[in-house]
Each structure stands twice: as C-alpha cells, then as structure tokens.
C-alpha cells in the first residue's frame, strides 16, 4: 500500500540512480539517521554506550569491511583480528607521536596503514583460492599479533606490553580516555560508521562492486570478460582492510581504552566478525548491521537472563553462550544461508504486494 514505486515519479538521472528508489525506504533511512543522531544521544548513559552502542557501531564497521572482502569479493579471510590490531597500533603510534593532530585524522590514517598491510597479505590471493586462502590469512592473524606482542617499538616500550589511549578531544569534547561524557564517543563512532556505510554502499552498487561480485561468482570467467583480477582482488583487500583498520582503531581508542593484543585481537575476534556477516547475510550492507547487532545483543541478553535471572555461574553461562552461537550458525546456514538480510528482503517483497498478494 505504502511500499511501492507507484506515484514516485523520477524526473532526472540522479533521482533514478539513488540508493533507495522507494519513497518509504528513503524516509525510513532518514528516520533512522534522525533517531541515531538526534534522539539516542539524549537518552543514553554510560552503561548503554559501553555495553551495547559502542560495540555495535564498531563491529558494524568491521563487519562492513569483512563483508566487502568475503561477501562481495568472495575471498574468505580469517585475519580480521590481526588487521584490527594493525589499526589499533597504528592509531596508538600516531596518537602518541603527533598529539596535536585531530584524532579523526588519526583514525582515518590508521585505516590507511591497515589497507597497506591488507594489500600485502592479499597478494597471495592471486595464486591461492578458497580454503587455502582462508588458511593463508591465518598467517596474517598470528604473525601480526606476535609482531605487536614482541616488538617493543609498537607499544612504546611500556612495561606491561599494553597500549592505552591518551585523552584526546574533538571540538573541545573528550572522545577518548576515562573522562568522556557518554554521548561524545557515541557520536564520534556514529559519524564514522555513517561515512563508512555510505561509502561501502555506493562502492558495492557501482562499477567496483560489480567487478568484485564478478570475481566472487567465478574469477576465471570474470577475467575473460575483462575484469582485472589483480586490481579487483587487491582493491577489495585494501577497502576491506581500511574499514577493519578504522574499526580496530576505534575499538582500541574509544571503546576499550587499553588493549593487550593477544586478548583483544586474537583469533576469536576474527571468527566473531565472520559470524556476524554469516548471520547477517553475506553480500549485504544491511546484513552487516543486522549481524553486528545480533551478536552484540545476544551475549548481553543471555548474560542478563542466565546469570542475572536464573543465577547460573558465569562460566557455565559462557559455555552455554558458545553452544548457542554455534547452534545458531549451523541453523542459519541450513535454514537461511543468506542470513538476516534475506529475511529482510523477503519481508520487503511481501510488503510490496500487501495487502493484495495476487
């Protein structure tokens, strides 16, 4: 009834090419942006920001990044944790070496450094495919974590081997460090996430995205119709690593504040982000958000119900969480291999015909 193209006349090419061609979608998008920017900051407190919103925003960036590589370009990567660590350490080194420069620029630069490292580890993807590549990216994961653990230059020779974010301000507001007001880091991450999502969305529906998808669907055929696999694969690695690096920088500087590389950016982090895009939906920007929201919310919910509600010991609850996550992954792969995004797509198709399905 309200969800159709009918009556929404497009009179120029720009309108015809816009991201959300259906009016309802467009208004929904503006509404979500409005709520996120103008309503939530007034309602949240420290607990909400640290338990839910910051991890959700940051993991969304990482999930979008990984989705570009795995979902759009078909190159499975298990090195996400390692690349996030590159972002975090690059951000740390930049923050401590050039304290006078804006942290926003540091975060972007950290993403740039990670993109470089990503391209380096993406080089073997030209020879190695499928599982072999997935395992090869593990080399990145373990080597990078080891590097940041063992080379003191990266953590400025601090005795604990940890890195901790110095206090930095943006427009006079503290966004890192212990004395932040709840909404400042939230808005900081939200702005970056919005920029990333818009870029990713437009990249993936443009020429570059089509090249990636051609490579994903069959790289030899893509090569024959004129897609340069070298450029396509390496650009996917670069863009993906850029987002993941930005996510890692935010994860360290804004969310955690102090980081021990093996704990924060271990192999489990890689799997977590991978699970997000599987559950959310491979090859979908919305899916990245949905998956991140799901896997951030579920442990909080489970913990509240099991530990808070039923009084289980925390370790039993943690094992139960593993069990649930594993079962969910398998269930999703069996019932809906395209994830939450596919459910959303089906719902939209139904809504188009509603209330007269024939």
């Amino acid at each position: 009834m309200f969800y159709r193209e009918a009556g929404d006349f497009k009179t120029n090419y720009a309108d015809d090419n816009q991201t959300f061609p259906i009016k309802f979608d467009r208004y929904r998008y503006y509404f979500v942006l409005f709520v996120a920017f103008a309503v939530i900051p007034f309602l949240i407190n420290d607990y909400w920001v640290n338990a839910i919103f910051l991890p959700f925003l940051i993991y969304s960036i990482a999930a979008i990044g990984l989705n570009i590589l795995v979902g759009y370009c078909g190159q499975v990567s298990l090195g996400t944790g390692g690349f996030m660590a590159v972002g975090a350490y690059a951000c740390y080194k930049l923050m401590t070496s050039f304290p006078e420069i804006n942290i926003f620029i540091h975060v972007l630069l950290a993403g740039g450094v990670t993109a470089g490292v990503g391209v380096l580890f993406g080089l073997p993807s030209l020879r190695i495919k499928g599982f072999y590549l997935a395992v090869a990216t593990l080399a990145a994961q373990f080597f990078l974590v080891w590097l940041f653990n063992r080379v003191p230059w990266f953590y400025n020779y601090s005795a604990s081997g940890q890195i901790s974010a110095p206090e930095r301000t943006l427009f006079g507001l503290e966004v890192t460090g212990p004395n932040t007001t709840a909404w400042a880091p939230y808005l900081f991450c939200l702005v970056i996430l919005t920029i990333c999502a818009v870029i990713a969305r437009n990249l993936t529906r443009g020429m570059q995205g089509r090249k990636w998808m051609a490579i994903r669907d069959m790289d030899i055929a893509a090569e024959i119709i004129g897609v340069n696999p070298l450029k396509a694969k390496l650009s996917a690695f670069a863009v993906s690593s850029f987002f993941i690096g930005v996510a890692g920088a935010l994860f360290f500087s804004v969310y955690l504040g102090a980081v021990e590389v093996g704990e924060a950016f271990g192999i489990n982090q890689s799997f977590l982000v991978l699970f997000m895009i599987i559950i959310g939906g491979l090859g979908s920007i919305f899916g990245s958000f949905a998956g991140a929201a799901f896997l951030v919310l579920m442990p909080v919910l489970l913990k509240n119900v099991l530990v808070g509600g039923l009084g289980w010991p925390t370790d039993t609850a943690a094992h139960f969480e593993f069990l649930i996550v594993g079962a969910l992954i398998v269930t999703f792969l069996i019932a809906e291999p395209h994830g939450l995004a596919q459910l959303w797509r089906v719902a939209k198709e139904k809504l188009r015909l509603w209330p007269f399905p024939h």
Partner: protein
Amino acid sequence: MPESLLYGTEVVLNGLMAGVLYALVALGFVLIYKASGIFNYAQGVMALFAALTLVGIMEGQIPFAHLINAMFGTELHHFGWHVPAFLAILLTMVVMVFLAWAVQKFVFRHLVNQEPIILFMATIGLAYFLEGFGDLMWGSDIKTLNVGLPQGGSFWIEENTQWLGFGNENFYGFFLDRLDIIATFIAAILVVVLVLFSQYTKQGRAMRAVADDHQAALSVGISLNFIWVMVWSVAGFVALVAGIMWGAKSGVQFSLSLIALKALPVLMLGGFTSIPGAIVGGLIIGVGEKLFEFSVGPYIGGATENWFAYVLALIFLVFRPQGLFGEKIIERV
C-alpha cells in the same frame, strides 16, 4: 661432533615427534575432506571433546553436573566409580560414533550440494557448539589424562646416545619424551591401518568411490549416508587417538582445540587430499618450527612457533597452490 650440531639434531628429533602429533590431527581432516569435500574445522574440537569424554568416563563424572547444579541447586559431581582405561576408550568411541551420526543427521544432510565455503563455515559453527557442549557436559577445568602411557624422558635413549658427544662433558645424550616415541608408533600403525582399510575392505572401497564421484557412487548402490557417518566415525576415532596423545602430554584443556589450527598449515603443505601428505606435512612443520625457534627465534623475540607454520605454508603455497601431494587443481569456466 660440535655441540651446536648435537643440539640441532636433538631439536630436529623433537620436531619430528611434535610433527607426528600434528599429523595425527591433520589425518582426520584429510579423511573427511576426501570423502565428503567438507573441510572440517571442528576436528581439533572433536579431539578435545573425545579427550574430555574419556576423562569424564574414567573419573565417573556426572555429565552436565554444573548445569544441573546451577538449575536445581544440587551438589552433584561424581558417580563415585572409576572405569578402567580400556573400557573407557571403548565407551568414548561409542560416543564419538553417536556424535558422527548426529552431525550427519542434523547438520550435513541438510547441507548437501551447498558450496564448500558454506560447509566450512558450518563446521566452524559446529566447533563452537561442541566446545560449549563439551565444557557444559564435563566442566572446563584442566584435567589430567592418564591411560597408562609412559611419560617423561627416555633414559635408555639418553644413555645410548651419550657416546655421540665423543667425550664432550656438556652432552648427556638426546632427550626424547617416551610419550612422543609411543605417539610416533601409534601414528604409524594408524596410518597403515587406514591405508589398508581404504584399499582392501568393502567399506573402504565404497568410501573411495564416494570421494571420487558422489553420483556415480549412488548409482552403483552405495549409501552416501552410511559412508558419511562412517567417515565421521573414523575421523572421530582419529580425533580420539589425537586427544589421548595431546591430553596425556599437556593435560585436557581448551588449548587442545587450538592444535586444529596448527593442523591447517600442515594440510596446506601436504595437500588436502593426501594421507601421506598429512604425515610429511606434519613432519616438515614440526621440524621447521622447532629449528626456526632454535636458530632464529632468540634474535627476534622468541615464541615464533605461533606463526612460523602459517607463514611457511603461505610462502610454500604461492609456489605450489595444491600442496606437496595434493591433486592438481584444474579450473574450467
């Protein structure tokens, strides 16, 4: 012989022993991959699960004790009996067969004809599930596994290799863990048995037929379901052996499942489809990482064993993408 050479030899020997243990895990991967095209990430967790179950049965633990205690406020822990090792191993094997059946019935039957990468991710999900399940069932504390295998250094070898030092006072002979030596023998026996099984028995032949071509195998009357359950059971058995070896060596604990990650570069090096490849790859990785740690490690901060195997496999793959013994990958449009 000069001292460094002697130490180097000892490092190589110990690397070979460690490599055998990697190869044990890698074997399970190869079996499942050959027969069903599934790259089973859960192999390491299966080894952990098998070891946990074995200890649980031997010690007479009540399954899900922690869960029951948490839910009903009881204080259950043990049945109060001890099961002899041999019987416990048999019972664990029964559990592993049941697990194989359940995995086949509830997961992979529904995923037939999916892309390999989807199957791979399903096994990652399975690994998480099993990890949570095993810990819920038997508790997550570190357990000691003692099935009567000898442990500690072998004095016999130490005494009989002392002459190699030629009067060098700092050399006391090679130090080899007796458990590692036994593991080597068991691995050798296992490989021989597996090869015999797949070459000379009816089921083994059926298994190879399925590996070769699913549809052709179906058309000559081979039950895919049965073969897959059987393959997962055999992989479960290999996991049990690996679990016993690793469990006896370093205790039954979560890090056991991480050896699966070590088995991945072994597989890449040897090729996913080759049983000898798994063995040779395991030995190369084992020796390589020990030698690298021994020779280069001290200069660059140590603990290089965490990543050396992966980087070695990565570099190797760039030159030979299908591994040492893998079938050549032919791609067509």
